[in-house]
C-alpha cells in the first residue's frame, strides 16, 4: 500500500522474483507523468497486472483528456467512487452492530480513514478505468483516481471526453452524493426520484443488516464440540 511514484518495495524477499519489471506500465506511467506534470500525485504498479494513477482533483478531467487523446485509451470502461470511511455497520464480525446485538458496549473508536493504492487524502475518491483497445497485443488499461474535496463534494464531469461517463456519473451521484460539474443532467438512474440518502456511503445503514445477525456468521462459528453457546441460531444468510 505505497503511494508516490516509486514502485518496487524491495524490502520483501518474496518480491525478488517479481523484479522482472513491467516495462509497458512503466512507460505508460512515464507518459502520464510527462503530460500531467505535478498534477499526478500518486501511482502504483503491480508488475504484470495493473497500473493505478491518482491525479489532483483539479486535473481530473485533464487526466481523461490525456488518456484519451494523447495515449489512445479511447475505450471507457467505468467510473465510480469509493467511500474510504470504515463502516460502523457490518465491516467485520466485531462491528458495533454485532456488539449491540450481543448486548456488549463496543468501544467507540474513531474510524481511521485509510486510502488504497496510489494514496489519497479525502474520505471520498472517484475512480475510473479506461483502456486502449482495438489492436491485438497492444491492449492496456489504467485505473485513474482523484480525491473528492470534502467541502465541495464535487468533481469535474467526464461526459465531454467520454460520452459514456453520463450514466456512470449519475450512478455515482445518487449512490455517493458526489456532484459532477458539467454533467448535462444529474438525475436518479436506479433509485426513485424521491429517494433520500446515498446508499453506498458507509454510514448509510443496510436495513436487513440491522435486523438480522451478520449473514457470514455461520462461517466462523465454532464446531459443536468446542463451543460454549454459539449465537448462530438464526444464521442463514438474509435472502435478497
Amino acid at each position: 500500500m505505497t503511494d508516490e511514484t516509486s514502485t518496487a518495495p524491495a524490502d520483501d524477499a518474496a518480491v525478488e522474483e517479481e523484479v522482472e519489471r513491467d516495462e509497458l506500465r512503466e512507460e505508460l506511467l512515464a507518459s502520464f507523468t510527462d503530460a500531467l506534470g505535478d498534477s499526478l500525485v500518486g501511482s502504483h504498479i503491480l508488475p504484470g497486472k495493473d497500473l493505478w494513477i491518482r491525479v489532483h482533483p483539479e486535473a481530473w478531467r485533464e487526466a481523461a483528456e490525456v488518456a484519451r487523446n494523447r495515449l489512445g485509451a479511447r475505450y471507457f470502461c467505468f467510473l465510480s467512487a469509493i467511500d474510504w470511511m470504515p463502516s460502523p455497520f457490518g465491516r467485520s464480525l466485531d462491528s458495533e452492530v454485532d456488539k449491540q446485538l450481543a448486548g456488549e458496549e463496543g468501544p467507540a473508536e474513531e474510524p481511521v480513514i485509510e486510502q488504497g493504492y496510489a494514496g489519497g487524502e479525502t474520505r471520498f475518491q472517484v475512480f475510473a478505468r479506461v483502456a486502449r483497445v482495438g489492436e491485438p497485443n497492444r491492449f492496456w488499461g489504467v485505473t485513474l483516481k482523484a480525491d473528492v474535496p470534502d467541502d465541495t463534494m464535487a468533481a469535474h464531469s467526464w461526459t465531454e471526453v467520454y460520452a459514456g461517463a453520463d450514466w456512470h456519473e449519475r450512478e455515482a451521484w445518487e449512490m455517493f452524493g458526489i456532484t459532477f460539474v458539467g454533467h448535462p443532467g444529474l438525475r436518479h438512474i436506479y433509485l426513485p426520484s424521491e429517494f433520500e440518502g446515498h446508499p453506498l456511503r458507509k454510514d448509510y445503514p443496510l436495513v436487513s443488516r440491522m435486523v438480522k445477525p451478520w449473514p457470514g456468521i455461520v462461517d466462523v462459528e465454532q464446531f459443536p464440540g468446542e463451543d460454549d453457546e454459539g449465537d448462530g441460531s438464526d444464521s442463514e444468510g438474509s435472502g435478497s
Partner: protein
Amino acid sequence: MTAVTDRQKLQYIAAKAADARVNVELETEGMTLNIGPQHPATHGTLRIVARLDGEQVISAEPVAGYMHRGYEKLSEVRTYPQVTTLVNRIDWLGSFANEVPFILAAEQLMGIEAPPRAQWIRTLLFEMSRIANLVLFLGDMGVQLGAVTPTFYAFRDREFVLNQIERVTGGRFHPNFDRIGGLKDDLPKGWIADTKAVMEKVREFCDEIEELFMNAEIFAERTRGIGVIPPDVAMQYGVSGSNARASGIDWDLRRDAPIGLVYPELDWKVWTHPDGDSFARFWVRLQEVREATRMIDQICDGLPSGPIMAKVPRIIKVPEGEAWISTENPLGEMGYYVVSKGDLTPFRLKIRSASFNNVSITPWLLRGVYVPDIITILASLYFILGDIDR
C-alpha cells in the same frame, strides 16, 4: 474508420433535415411514447420513453432501475464465498461467467492460482454459459422481427446445454460452482462424451439459424444499415463484447487479457464485422457460438488430470489491496473492482457489467430511427436486465 464516420455524419444530417422538414411543412406536434417497463420487446423491465415526430424518434431515454437489487451494497456484508451467490444473478442467462471474474480477482488478491484442471474446466463452463446465453439471442432476434420459429429452436437446443451445465453444477441457471482456489466438484463420469454430442447439436442449430436468417430478405431489410454504431462512438460509450466487434473493433479479452483461463492454449479466432449495424451484431454472435463449440471440443480433448482445488484456508480472509479483473462475458466486458481491507468481506465491490454500458448508448443510437426499428436495435444490442440494474 473514417468512412464509417462520414456515413454516420450523413445519417445524422439527414435525420436533422427530416426533422426540420416534418416540423415546418406539416407542423406536427411531438408525441411521447412510453415503451415498457413491462413490454415483451424489452427483455425485462427496461422502460424507454421516446419522443416521436410521426414515425421518427426525436429522443429516446431509457429508464432503468426497476430491478435494482443493490449488489454493491449487499456484497459489503457478505463473505467472499457468499458473494458468488449474488453475482450469479446479474446476467442470469450465463451465470457461471459472472462468477469467474470475481473469483479471479479474489484469487489475485490472495495470491492463489487454481490448479490447471480447474482452469480448464472453468474455461469449459465459461464457454458453455456463453452458448446458453447467445443461443437464446439468436432465437430471440427472430421474435423481434415477427418470426417465432427460431425461438422454439433456440429454447429446444439451449436445453441440452443447460442439462450439461446442470449435470456438473447442480443448477441450470445459478450454478454457484466456482470457488476461490478452484471448483466445487469435478466433472461427472461420461459427461465429456455427452457434451461433445451436444456441441454437435448446437452446430446444427447454428446452421439452421443461418439458413433461416441469412437468406431471408425481410431480415436483411430490417437489420442491414439499421442502428449503425461507429467504432469510435462504441468505444466512448464503453460498448464491449460482440457489439464492439460488430463495429469492427478487434478486441477480445479472451485473447488480449486471458487471466486465469486457458484461451491461449486453444485454437480459435476472434470474429469481427466492419458494418456496425444490427445485422453485424447478429452475425458476429452466430460465429461466436460456433467458435465456442469448437473451443469446448478442444477443451474436452485436452483436459489435463489433477486436483481441482488449490490449498485454501477454511476461513477466507483476503489480504489488503485492490484488484480489477474483467473477462469477456457473453454480453461483453464484465469486471469486478475489489477493494479489500483484509476482512472477511469486500470493503468495496464495483461491478462493471456489460449491458449497463451497452444500453447507455441507446439515446445516441435511437435518435432519428423509425419506431419499429427501436425494437430490432434493442434486440440486436442484446442486454439482460439484471446486467443493467445489478
